[in-house]
């Protein structure tokens, strides 16, 4: 079975995790920032694509950088909200094992899954740092955006996801879901 919140529920405060102690407000701010950056990047994609249509039907000339910037925005959007999705169990996962386990067993499996996600993300943070260093000085062909910037946002996304995954099992209360 594939588990994912429905479109209507995604991103709302319903089902948002609660955190013990003083960490709650900090995580809330991070979540809000992630969602806001994601919404801004989506707006950028929409504006860039519309701009491309407009310049094609007007004598403004070709803005090749709009397509490139829109593509980069989608790449950044994908990774920057990975932690937000993890914090709210909104990544697509297969929850068939829940049917065979007690409540305690289910909690242990969730902790295991989170620790695996944390380890994977740390690996990709390491990859990202290497890639950023390797790509220093190279710029994209149209928008002239440094390639290091291209990979910086996914690396930050993996880092935020790793933090969420690794602290989650210890500071997160059971969510309402």
């Amino acid at each position, binding site marked *: *079975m*594939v588990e*994912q919140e*429905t*479109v*209507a529920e*995604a*991103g*709302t405060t319903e089902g948002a995790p609660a955190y013990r102690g003083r960490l709650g407000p900090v995580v809330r701010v991070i979540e809000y920032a992630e*969602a*806001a950056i*994601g*919404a801004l*990047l*989506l*707006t950028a*994609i*929409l504006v860039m*694509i*519309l701009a*491309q*249509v407009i310049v094609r039907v007007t004598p403004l000339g070709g803005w090749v950088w709009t397509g490139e910037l*829109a*593509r980069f925005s*989608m*790449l950044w*959007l*994908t*990774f920057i*909200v990975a932690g*937000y*999705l*993890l914090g709210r169990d909104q*990544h*697509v*996962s*297969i*929850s*068939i*094992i*829940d049917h065979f386990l007690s409540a305690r067993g289910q909690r242990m*499996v*969730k902790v*295991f*899954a989170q620790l*695996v*996600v944390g380890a*994977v*993300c740390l*690996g*990709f943070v*390491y*990859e*990202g740092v*290497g*890639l950023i260093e*390797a*790509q220093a000085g190279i710029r994209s062909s149209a928008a002239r955006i440094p390639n290091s910037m*291209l*990979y910086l946002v996914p690396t930050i996304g993996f880092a935020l996801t790793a933090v969420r995954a690794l602290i989650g099992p210890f500071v997160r209360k059971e969510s309402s879901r």
Partner: protein
Amino acid sequence: MTLAIMGIAIVVLLFFRVPIAFAILGPCYCYLWYTEQSLGSGLRVAAQGVNSWPLLAVPLFVLVGVSATRAGIADRLFDFALAMVGRVRGSLGYVNIGVSVGFSWMSGSALADAAGLGSVEVPAMRKRGYPARFAVGLSGASSAIGPIMPPSIPAIVYAAVAVVSTGALFAASVVPAFLLAIALAITVYIWARKREELRTERFSMAVLGRTFVRASGAMLTPVIILGGILGGLFTPTEAAAIAAVYMLLLGFIYRTVKPRDLFGIFRDTVMTTASIMIILAASTLLGWILAREQVPQTVADAIFSFTDNKVVFLLLVNVFLLLFGAIIEPTSALVISVPILLPIAMEFGIDPIHFGVIVILNLMIGLLTPPMGGVVFVLSSVTGIPIADVFRGVSPFLIPLIAVLMVVTFVPELALWLPSLVNL
């Protein structure tokens, strides 16, 4: 050997509830480390998977779907369809299919359709005396129309992976989507023909006119999307952007969307998009590793040693994809299977656009079958009907869906007629 261990690790991690994207990325990372690939190659390949112009249509079409849901389009389409066929026996069954067809022009995701429409259709059908299993089964089956009719998220992903025209694939999907609707309507007719009590609404020209006006704005969306693409005015990505703006404007005009709702609409769109795209990124890395290990060639050799018959190959592909789609999420299934199967299909002389329609149909049927059945679980969640009942409700409708799949598989003209008509 390394590849086998990687495959087993992915399956084990998936079973232990690790999110699909990370269950794929983890073993892939270990493979890169074990085979001493250069640092950063994993992230670079995964990022390339989503850094694609055709895929930009995904967030924009998701935005169209989320905006349509918030704008209350489903209710308007439902009222119009009911006014049109309410007098017919089993009318709500046809309404269910009609609304799915109408909404499918605004949404390309079966899960979103099941969530958005299921919550409207199933209670309405149960209230008018339809059995819960029939209502939820039909809603599940009709939600498969959404990702087949353009705009279709799986079609955009297939087009990007197979490097074919998204517009051509959109055009090729129109006839199969209508065939699905007709096959489901025939099933409803057979089921309802002896149920006189299911003839509910009186026909009223005034109500029909009023509901038509209320739904007419939404019914213009296919004109913008498919008309724009087939007419050569926009690329699919541009059509998606224009349709998104149009749908938001409709919401404002209907007063169902207010400026303060925009952040929520955009946030929901981002989260839905990111949950798809991160799987796509991970699957791209897995596909890269499979290609590096020459898995497509090995599979091709195995298939050609087994058969050189096109019909047998297509049957094998259908069985494989139905099973694969039943156990794995469609985006991953698509990104992993297409680079392996498409070159073999082309060796057999199968058109890549036709093959795309076959792949998408199979994987969407997989959303309705155990053990994964994403649509089934969404419907159970939004209607409160137990999962086992939803599966039982959906199962009779698999017959018309598989019948359409077979017809589309073996009559390629059904898919290829429209693209050739508009020179795509």
